[in-house]
């Protein structure tokens, strides 16, 4: 089977995948998805398997980003439902989280058993420090993407959220209830 070179030349549309194909497809995404699954979902769903066009993928993803929960998890539920109903949703979700959850359970057992060995303690401490740097880079990139020319109300919302949840460590529910309506109202006002 030939793989199309890029998103501009997507694979030809094929019939909707069955539950088994959904399970295998999302399990592949999970297994390859080191450092985030978004890039791999696009690659497999649009390019390799040709289940969706690049535009349709973006449209569905936009909706998934609006709903609560993991974006690709929501994508698996919604796309699975469209292809094969509730069975399709279940198959896609189990494929996406089943194998990584088994891996996490094994990792947790090993960590509890060996995590306090001095040599491994150094490894985990260094890994934690590196993962922190990775998360700082992610937030810096997200901030950079929103600051174009001037400070907008959204920046104050982001700063207020950071102080409330990160510095003061207030419960997330309070933070959401207090800040989300204001933020959405400001977004509406900016787009009048």
């Amino acid at each position, binding site marked *: 089977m030939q793989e199309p070179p890029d998103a501009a030349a997507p694979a030809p549309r094929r019939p909707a995948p069955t539950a088994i194909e959904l399970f295998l497809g999302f399990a592949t995404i*999970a297994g390859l998805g*080191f*450092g*985030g699954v978004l890039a791999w979902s696009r690659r497999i769903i649009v390019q390799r398997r040709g289940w969706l066009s690049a535009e349709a993928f973006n449209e569905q993803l*936009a*909706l998934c980003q*609006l709903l*609560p*929960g*993991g*974006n690709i998890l*929501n994508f698996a*539920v919604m796309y699975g*439902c469209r292809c094969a109903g509730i069975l399709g*949703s279940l198959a896609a979700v189990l494929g*996406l*989280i089943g194998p*990584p*959850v088994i*891996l*996490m*359970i094994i990792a*947790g057992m090993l*960590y*509890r058993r060996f995590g306090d060995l001095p*040599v491994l303690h*150094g*490894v*985990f*401490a*260094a*890994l*934690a*420090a*590196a*993962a*922190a*740097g*990775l*998360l700082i*880079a992610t937030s810096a990139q*997200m*901030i950079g993407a*929103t600051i174009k020319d001037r400070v907008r109300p*959204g920046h104050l*919302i*982001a700063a207020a*959220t*950071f102080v409330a*949840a*990160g510095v003061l*460590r207030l419960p997330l*529910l309070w933070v*959401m209830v207090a*800040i989300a309506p204001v*933020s*959405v*109202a400001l*977004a509406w006002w900016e*787009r009048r």
Partner: protein
Amino acid sequence: MDDSRVYLGLIATFAMCSVIAVGGANSTVPEMHRAAVDVYGWISDLKFSELFAIAQAAPGPNVVFVALLGEYIAGVPGALIAITAMCLPSCTIAYCAARLIDRFEHARWRIVIQAGLVPLTIGLIASSALIVTRAADRNLAAVLITAASFALCYWTRVSPLVALALAAGLGLMGVV
């Protein structure tokens, strides 16, 4: 029984995180940390950040971090309870959305709500970064590793796994 109290705590924590996670699972790391470390005292600050790092280094969606956390707190049942509590509510909402609404990607209300949630997501991811960094950076070597990892991930296009692998190598040599 003590176990069932822990299970109920896991369900309450993660089911709540599930329905208020905006822009992906990592935005609820501050809340998971608050519940697991400060409220219930299930795990230490440092262990939390170490488990987070292990989950980042493993393949799969970010949300499976809760399975690792659940396993550490309450074994295999804890892992299964945590991941189910974290996925079931949001997946149910997504399923209903898929059934109810077909195409509304251009709907104005969707665009406005989504635009309004972006700054919240950014603030929450930055909070996650602050919490994990505070816990992980206990000495100068760790601070330098964080800085180097940030530089590698921010200014270059190499995979974040390179930063994690290099850090693991340094840790093995006993630098931290």
